[in-house]
């Protein structure tokens, strides 16, 4: 069974927001609700400055705190490691929003359901690749099977020594090059 994950290379991300809008379109989200958020980080001081755009979305954690706290079991993890929300079970208590350390959970309106990135899951499989990866103008996103050492994502993670954003918070399945 595959174990899906993603690699985001901030050294290639110019912050064009295409991923956010493609995600909104394919998920039918209104303009002001988004599963991908952006953080601009400045390091150093003038004139020795480095600035990066860090897109953040659900990390599909192996030990997803949102799933642990979800009282209704609306949040669950598929065999392939994708963390999903059964919208028909969600009561909108927002406990998952509080528990997620990445601020990746979004309450949708008017349904009140709390959703998040689902790797474009549809009919038992993730998008291949998900919409954000497909539209990324610079190839800053790679999607694939973390358990397959021959996959592009595994090779790239090894080559770039990509790491989860905050390894001490959860066991995330989105790796970052920074």
């Amino acid at each position, binding site marked *: 069974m595959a174990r899906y994950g993603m690699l985001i290379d901030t050294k290639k991300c110019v912050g064009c927001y295409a991923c956010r809008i493609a995600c909104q379109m394919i998920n039918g989200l209104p303009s002001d609700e988004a599963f991908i958020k952006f*953080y601009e*980080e400045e390091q150093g001081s003038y004139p020795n400055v480095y600035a990066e755009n*860090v897109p*953040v979305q659900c990390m599909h954690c192996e030990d997803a*705190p949102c799933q*642990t*706290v*979800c*009282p*209704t*079991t*609306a949040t669950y993890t598929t065999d392939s490691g994708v963390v999903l929300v059964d*919208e*028909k*079970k*969600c*009561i*909108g*208590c*927002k*406990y998952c*929003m*509080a*528990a*997620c*350390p*990445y*601020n990746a959970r979004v*309450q949708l*309106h*008017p*349904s*009140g*359901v*709390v959703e998040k990135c689902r790797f474009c899951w549809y009919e038992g499989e993730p998008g291949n690749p998900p919409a954000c990866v497909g539209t990324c103008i610079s190839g800053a996103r790679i999607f694939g099977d973390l358990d397959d050492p021959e996959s592009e994502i595994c090779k790239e993670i090894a080559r770039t020594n990509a790491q989860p*954003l*905050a390894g001490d*918070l959860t066991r995330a399945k989105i790796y970052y090059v920074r």
Partner: protein
Amino acid sequence: MVWGPMIAWYLFLAGASAGAFITAAFVARKYPDSVKMRVAGRLIAPVFMAIGLLLLMLDAEAGMHDPLRFVYLVLNPGSVMTLGVYFICIYMPVCLIAAILEIRKTPVPGWLDWIGIISAFCVAAYTGFLLGVVHAYPLWNNAILPILFVISALSAGLAATSLIGLITDRERFEQMWLVKKSHVILSAIEAIVLFTMLVIVNSGSPEGAASVHSLIAGQYAPLFWGGLVILGLIAPFMIEGYPVFITKKPETSTTSLVVSIIGESGVLIGGFVLRLLIVLAALPVAFL
């Protein structure tokens, strides 16, 4: 912030409900003649809990669209919220039956009272654990928060019950030294526990320190010092402590009645403000 005043109200009402039930049980044993106060506690418990639950449901937007979904709340025993649902499932019927028995002037059986007391403690503790298990917020994620919430719950329940006792049956109320003493002691312990928690959170992480700073010196400082520390802790301590430890005699003057009412109300306001501040001031751990 993920949660707002609605959830703070729920946390407060659930805690005060549990505290009121425990107060009533305590009064029933120690002061069997103080009927009005006991009845007050028995009635406050289910009413507060019911209002709290209503607010909790109103905050759960998706559940309000499809109320049958609330049934799923029992599905994840690993979630503190589900545990809370279990506790409430026991506590709510028990305190409701106790209230009905009290209204019908039938004695509440001892075993039922004990189930109620234990489940009340569980409910009060759960409101603390609910936040306490969330790793993302250092202000919540510490072992002291549940203790603080339990103490504050007892204090608030006692205050709500006392307030009614004070108004409806003052003469007898002024004789209940144990109740009054507990009240003063609870205020003192709550202050110490709160102080300890803030010290520990402050030293634990930058985000924790930022949360504490926002409480004691930042945007929440007026509410923290005015609503929680002065009105909710110091004023009640002084007002109740004065007759209990200094004059050591029951008060009868109208002035003292007004002052006592202020003290009890202060505890209630402080109880709500505490939860509101804990909910609002929590800052998440940085992930970047």
